[in-house]
């Protein structure tokens, strides 16, 4: 086994937390069950990793197997990457061909290899007709850097693909082209949507976030809040009860009852020329537009926005610029003069 492959496997296994070790190794399915039984999982991590790497050597693990382990690790830790969303489209009137996963994979890899000799491409199928693609980029003279791969998650029945943030921006056009051509699309566009939470991005883009699941004891939430008030101390009286109820109602209408998809920020870029009634002011003659950037950050942005009005920090209804985020599938906005 190549030394670089051994080092790569060692570093990947070292990243895995002990609680997940067994699960991930089983998902990898490279080391058989009986061999895993012989390893002592109670020893210190460094020694455990050494034992596992020796086992991999004895089974002659290849770069391919190592890449697969890396994909599985990333699938378990998808929140460690920041994901962008790409949307592809076909020409209007184009025939809808049946999607062939194997043809897509071979075509994708071929396109990349034709442009760049040094590249490692690996695939892993996932549920919902999705495929996880791992790409390690090299250059004409250097072998691929296995420690800075790019991941693409493509849902074959949809025109959407999610890519992890890539430091080498120069390879993005090639990646986009490979994706578009291999999947029989005509155009690809990067959406103004970015987050760590892949599942939330999926929910927004596939419009799955507003599905409410019926449970046996689902009651109207408004009634619930009123009942809660009854249990409170009767010596406390809310004067603005009607206003509170209105705010709750408006919030519920805007955001719904369901849990919101998870985003970490929303960014608004404003570009406008200065407008003033007074002529001859300092800024009136300015030709350059004024620029302003506002960024909202939160561990869970949409839930935070939802709780603004009920908490009394903002008026209800909130600005449509904030509430349109899941609907429009954007969290980057550019606001210009009309």
């Amino acid at each position: 086994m190549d030394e670089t492959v051994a080092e790569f496997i060692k570093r990947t296994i070292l990243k895995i937390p002990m609680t997940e070790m067994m699960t991930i190794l089983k998902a990898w399915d490279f080391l058989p069950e009986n061999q895993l039984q012989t390893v002592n999982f109670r020893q210190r991590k460094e020694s455990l990793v050494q034992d596992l790497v020796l086992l991999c050597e004895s089974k002659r693990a290849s770069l391919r197997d190592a890449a697969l382990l890396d994909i599985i690790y990333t699938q378990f830790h998808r929140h460690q990457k920041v994901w962008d969303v790409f949307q592809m489209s076909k020409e209007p009137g184009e025939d809808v061909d049946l999607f062939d996963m194997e043809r897509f994979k071979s075509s994708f890899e071929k396109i990349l290899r034709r442009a760049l000799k040094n590249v490692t491409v690996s695939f892993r199928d996932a549920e919902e007709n999705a495929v996880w693609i791992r790409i390690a980029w090299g250059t004409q003279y250097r072998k691929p850097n296995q420690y800075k791969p790019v991941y693409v998650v493509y849902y074959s029945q949809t025109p959407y693909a999610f890519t992890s943030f890539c430091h080498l921006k120069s390879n993005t056009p090639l990646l986009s082209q490979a994706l578009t051509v291999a999947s029989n699309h005509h155009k690809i566009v990067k959406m103004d949507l970015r987050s760590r939470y892949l599942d939330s991005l999926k929910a927004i883009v596939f419009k799955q976030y507003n599905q409410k699941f019926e449970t046996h004891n689902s009651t109207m939430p408004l009634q619930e809040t009123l009942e809660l008030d009854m249990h409170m101390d009767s010596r406390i009286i809310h004067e603005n009860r009607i206003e509170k109820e209105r705010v709750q109602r408006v919030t519920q209408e805007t955001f719904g009852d369901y849990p919101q998809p998870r985003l970490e920020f929303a960014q608004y870029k404003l570009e406008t020329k200065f407008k003033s009634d007074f002529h001859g002011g300092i800024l009136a003659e300015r030709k350059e537009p004024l620029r302003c950037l506002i960024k909202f950050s939160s561990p869970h942005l949409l839930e935070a926005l939802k709780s603004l009005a009920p908490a009394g920090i903002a008026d209800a209804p909130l600005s449509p610029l904030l509430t349109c985020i899941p609907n429009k599938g954007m969290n980057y906005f550019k606001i210009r003069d009309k």
Partner: protein
Amino acid sequence: MSVLRPLDKQPGLNTATILLVGTEDALLQQLADSMLKEDCASELRVHLARSLPLPSSVDRPRIDLIVFVVNLHSKYSLRNVEESLHHVDATFFLGKAAFLATGAGRESHCSVHRNTIVKLAHTYRSPLFFCDLEIEGFRATMAQRLVRMLQICAGHVPGVSALNLLSLLRSSETLAPEDL
């Protein structure tokens, strides 16, 4: 009834009512709960309002003390209190009104300057308390003070009136904001 007046209703028997005015319902609720935990000979009632004027449809007892709660982290809450002050009769400010500023502990989050609220309280000649309502211990202490103040304003403490209390509190302020 768009203006609150202190003496336009009969007092209830042994009842003392406080009105807390502020935008952040959760904080007001917590303060109300803390106040009601206190041992008190009078029957307490706490009214929570987001802003004034109060809706006229509610039948309420005479209000003995109004506390305007401003969150120093939010200009919105200050503006709300400033607008509500227009709906209070001037005679309330003879000891039956007070200001409470919360959030001063986290300086970096404050968007309302300390001086702004000090000036506001000075304009209305009313006492100003600083208390971080989010912290259990401070809130309990503040609740104790407010309950005591409420009892005096309701006339339940013999020998001390709201106006007495006001002048006692004022003499402990050594500097007016102009001198700062």
